[in-house]
């Protein structure tokens, strides 16, 4: 293959021209609308102090598990089960609602192409789920216990927050 010297020079000129004068190109359509729609749809919140947040979540999950064990142990000793069908229905509904929220969250991450990136938090996630299972079981026995209801809702919220944290912070963002 023979390439003339003039082709080489011309290529150098074209490179200089593009790099110096035509680095910017105007898109052939309005791209902002799609960006704005995506931002609005996902209601993205900008994470602040992510590392502190991870540490806090990790400590919280462990604390929750211990607290759950202590609370439920005390309740087993002091309380007699009170049947309450309305409370059990509400518990079923709350559990299903949480599962739906979790599924919607996971689906949205999958659709956006995100992958779970913080595997070390799997243990914390499992601890939260274990705590939720224990509290749910106890609520079936004590459906009138308001503290347990609040505790369950709080743990559900922690699980959703933890899932959001666990999904990929792309490599693209790790170095500034």
């Amino acid at each position, binding site marked *: *293959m023979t*390439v*003339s010297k*003039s*082709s*080489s020079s*011309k*290529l*150098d000129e*074209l*490179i*200089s*021209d*593009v*790099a*110096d004068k*035509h*680095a*910017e*190109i*105007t*898109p*052939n*359509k309005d*791209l*902002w609308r*799609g*960006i*704005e729609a*995506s*931002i609005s749809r996902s209601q*993205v*919140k*900008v*994470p*602040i102090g*992510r590392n502190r947040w991870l540490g806090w979540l990790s400590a919280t999950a462990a604390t929750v598990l211990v607290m759950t064990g202590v609370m439920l142990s005390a309740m087993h000793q002091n309380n007699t089960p009170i049947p309450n069908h309305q409370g059990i229905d509400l518990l079923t509904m709350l559990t299903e609602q949480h599962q739906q929220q979790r599924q919607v969250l996971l689906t949205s991450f999958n659709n956006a*192409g995100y992958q779970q990136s913080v595997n070390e938090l799997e243990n914390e996630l499992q601890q939260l789920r274990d705590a939720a299972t224990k509290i749910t079981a106890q609520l079936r026995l004590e459906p009138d216990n308001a503290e347990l209801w609040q505790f369950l809702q709080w743990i559900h919220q922690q699980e959703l927050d933890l899932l959001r944290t666990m999904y990929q*912070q*792309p*490599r*693209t*963002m*790790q*170095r*500034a």
Partner: protein
Amino acid sequence: MNASDRLKGTTVTAQVVTHTHFDDPDKALVKRAAEGDLIAFRQLYDRHHRRVYGLVMRLAGNLDTANDLTQEVFIQVWKYLANFRGDSKFSTWLHTVATRVAISELRQQSRRSNHLQFVGDDQHEIEQGLTHEDSADLAELDRLIQRLPPQTRWAFVLHCIEGMRHEDVASELGIAVGTSKAQVHRARTLLEEWLSHDSI
């Protein structure tokens, strides 16, 4: 042209500017956008989207993909703007984000569509690159770049047009430094050949 290339006198490369002390003109907007101000973010988009589009269009070699990539870059920037520490100019950070988002997505596309390119398969490359009707609006070099095989194109664009060192190109593409140099050499050879044919 960077210093080493000027000495060799063989390759034109855009100048790399490093900032030790700088006033970032985007600083105030970045701060507001990081706090959730979408209007400020829109202003950042207005300032920088054409530069991002130029980069990802050349990496993608395809205008439709460039549209998608540009949107994805700014969506990711919005999500992770709080992670930007201000150690560099926002425009520099944005450039890095854009490069990584583009390369990551293009790699996935390449795997999905199994568009493997082989040395010597120039005819296929040319046919693939000339299918977009909007390519007529592009500069001559941009039209030619579209013909290059993906990894060859990425190395050429990042080194020769964006001014990145081969070490940095290799790091971004996950290849050896020697491979980056070889890809740029191959790109230049193909482009010079095509320029030679076009001038006949």
